[in-house]
C-alpha cells in the first residue's frame, strides 16, 4: 500500500476514527528534509501494510490540524491509535526513527 494524502477535511475520519494505527507525516514541498523522508515513508507503507497506514498532510494547504497538534517544525510525524497520539518524531531521523515510532503499536 502506498502512502495516502489527507486534509483537514478528512483528518477526523481517516486518522482519528481509523481502526488501523495511522502515522501522519506533516510536510510541505519547500522543506528539504521532508523530501528525503518521502521515499522512506513509501517504503515503510509497503513494509507495514495492513498494520499501519502512512498518511501525509501538506501544512501549507492545511493549517487546522498542525495547529491543533502543536506542530511547529517539519517534518513532524505523529502516530495515532484509536484517536490518540501515541508518540511523535520531530525532524527526519531516517528509517529507524519512523520504525521506532511504529513499533510502539506494531509487533
Amino acid at each position, binding site marked *: 500500500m502506498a502512502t495516502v494524502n489527507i486534509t483537514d477535511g478528512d483528518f477526523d475520519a481517516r486518522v482519528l476514527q481509523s481502526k488501523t494505527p495511522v502515522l501522519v507525516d506533516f510536510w510541505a514541498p519547500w522543506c528539504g*528534509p521532508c523530501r528525503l523522508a518521502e521515499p522512506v515513508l513509501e517504503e515503510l507503507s509497503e513494509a507495514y501494510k495492513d498494520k499501519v497506514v502512512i498518511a501525509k498532510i501538506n501544512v501549507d494547504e492545511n493549517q487546522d490540524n498542525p495547529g491543533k497538534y502543536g506542530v*511547529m*517544525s517539519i517534518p513532524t510525524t505523529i502516530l495515532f491509535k484509536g484517536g490518540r497520539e501515541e508518540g511523535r518524531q520531530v*525532524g527526519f531521523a531516517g*528509517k529507524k526513527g519512523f520504525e521506532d515510532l511504529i513499533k510502539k503499536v506494531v509487533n
Partner: protein
Amino acid sequence: MENTKFFEKPQEGQPWDVAIIGSGPSAFSAAVYSTRGAASTLILGGANWGGQLMLTTDVDNYPGFPEGIQGPELVAKMRAQAERFDAEFKAEDVVSVDFSSNPFKLKTDAGEYSANAVIIGTGAGTHWLGVPGEEKLRGRGVSSCAPCDAPFFKEKRVVVVGGGDSAMEEALVLTKYATSVTIIHRRDAFRASQAMQQKVLANKKINVIWNSEVTEFVGGDKLEKVIVKDKDGKAAELPAEGAFVAIGHVPATEIFKGQVELDEKGYVKRYEKDGYKMATSKEGVFVAGDVHDFHYRQAVTAAGFGCMAGMEALKHLDKEPPNY
C-alpha cells in the same frame, strides 16, 4: 542521463578503492574526482543526507548559478553528478569505523564495508545552546532551521540567537512571516558578512539585543518566552512563540574518536605530509570540509577541499605521494 563508468564495482566482500563518509559538497565533490580517476567509490551518506545545504534556502555565493539556487536542489544536483560517474550512494549511517588495519573497515546501520582509502566529509551539525527548556521545546517553538519552520510563525514573535551569516539568514527568512524578529547576540557587533549585515540592519521588522545571552526557554507544550541575560547579569523576559538557534556548528566526529586525531573542539586534525594536504593522522584516511575547516565553512570551500581529498586519495591508491 546515462552513467559513465570508469571502473568495476568490487565483488561482495571485496574492498572499495575509496569510501567517502558524508553527503554534502565535500563528499560529493571528492566522489566526482575519485570516480573520474577510475577508483571504485562508495558514498555512505546517511539517511538524513545532504548536510547543511538541506536546511538553507537561497544560495547566492556558489559560482555557476547567477540567479542563485535553492540549497536542497544544489546538493541533490551534486549527488546526481557523483552518481553519473557511477559512485555508489548508500543512505546508511556509519556507526563505527576501524582504521587500525588495511583495508579500512566501516560499519553502518545496515551493513559492513571495506575500502583502501577513506575520505571523511561528515561536516557539522547545529550547535545548540544547551540551556534549560531547549531540548524539551525543540519542534515546539525552538528550532535551528528557519527555512524549514518559518511558515509556522506567521504573525508570531520570534527570536534568533547568533551573529553570523546563518543567524542573519534565519532572521531574514523569518521577516516574511513573523510580526517581529529579535536577534540576540552576545557581542556588540556581528561577525556576518557585510552584505548580510546590511540587509538585516535595514529591515524594519528586525530588532537586535546586543551583549546578551539566552539562558532559558520557557513554555509548556509550546514556547512562551525566553530569558535573556545582559553582560551585567541582569535578566529579562522576552515573550516569543519561536526561537531559532544559529550560534554555530559542531563537527560530526563521534565515530572517529580514537581512530584519527581530533582537536580539543572535536574537529578532525588536518595534516600536511609527504606532499599531501588533506591527510589525517592515519595514512590513507583523508578529510574535507566543515569537519576540519572551522574557518571558511562555505559550500564552495567544502567542494574545493573535497576535490583535493579526492585527488589525494587517488595518489594514495597509486602509491605515488604528490611531493609538491
